[in-house]
């Protein structure tokens, strides 16, 4: 059994940070925050009719990022920061943000330097928010402890069987 810890996550914090990222460059079309298992936590789009399967894009970005991370571990070349994927008509960037992966989908003509900078800067804030969001701790032993009477009745039950 798990319960939330004392630090509460602001439900709108993710949207606020992702919106901040999407506003930085006119070429940014979509920003998605996923956890390392590929589940979408939050996303924002510049155009509401931009037709993409957010969950699938996020899951693949997370998988690609984690695969590259593994390569880095095997080669012992330190922590992975950003994975850029350049296509003929667009770019996808995936960066680490604590327990999650931040994914930015953009047009081909985009200020790569600025996107890198923003992803690194906002990634720190997102990591903090994710920590709060995912902060769960098990019940303390005192609360989960069975009292003596419960144990006795359980033993009696066993003996009867």
């Amino acid at each position, binding site marked *: 059994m798990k319960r939330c810890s004392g630090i509460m996550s602001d439900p709108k914090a993710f949207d606020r940070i992702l919106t901040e990222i999407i506003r*930085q*460059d006119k070429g940014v079309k979509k920003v998605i925050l996923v956890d390392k298992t590929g589940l979408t936590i939050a996303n924002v789009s510049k155009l509401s009719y931009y037709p993409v399967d957010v969950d699938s894009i996020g899951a693949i970005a997370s998988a690609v990022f984690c695969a590259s991370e593994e390569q880095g571990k095997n080669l012992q070349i330190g922590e992975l920061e950003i994975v850029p994927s350049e296509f003929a008509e667009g770019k996808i960037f995936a960066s680490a943000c604590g327990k999650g992966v931040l994914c930015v989908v953009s047009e081909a003509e*985009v*200020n*790569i*330097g*600025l*996107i*890198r*900078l923003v992803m690194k800067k906002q990634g720190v804030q997102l990591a903090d928010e994710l920590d709060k969001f995912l902060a769960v701790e098990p019940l303390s032993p005192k609360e989960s402890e069975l009292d003596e009477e419960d144990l006795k009745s359980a033993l009696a039950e066993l003996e009867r069987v």
Partner: protein
Amino acid sequence: MISQEKLQKILSNLKAQEGVRGVVVTNMDGLPLSSDLDPETTENVAAIITSLVGKALDAVRELREGSLSFLTLDTTKGQINIAPDVNEGLILVVLKNNE
């Protein structure tokens, strides 16, 4: 395309000028190509100045004022001189201290 040798010569001439505290050359994608500043400052300068140049290019085009040749930012610390070359896809940034 400018040769690396020629570029380095121009940069060392600029660095030798009095009051110059940094010279950065970046491409139009905001990725630095050459710099004498620390990596973090270089990355910041390249990204932010490229974004500014992009907006300035848009403004000049929308206002039908020909082509952008130079930008100067006067600050309390000094000056930021920006020379974009759209044809080469390069931006030269010179950071200067107050005299």
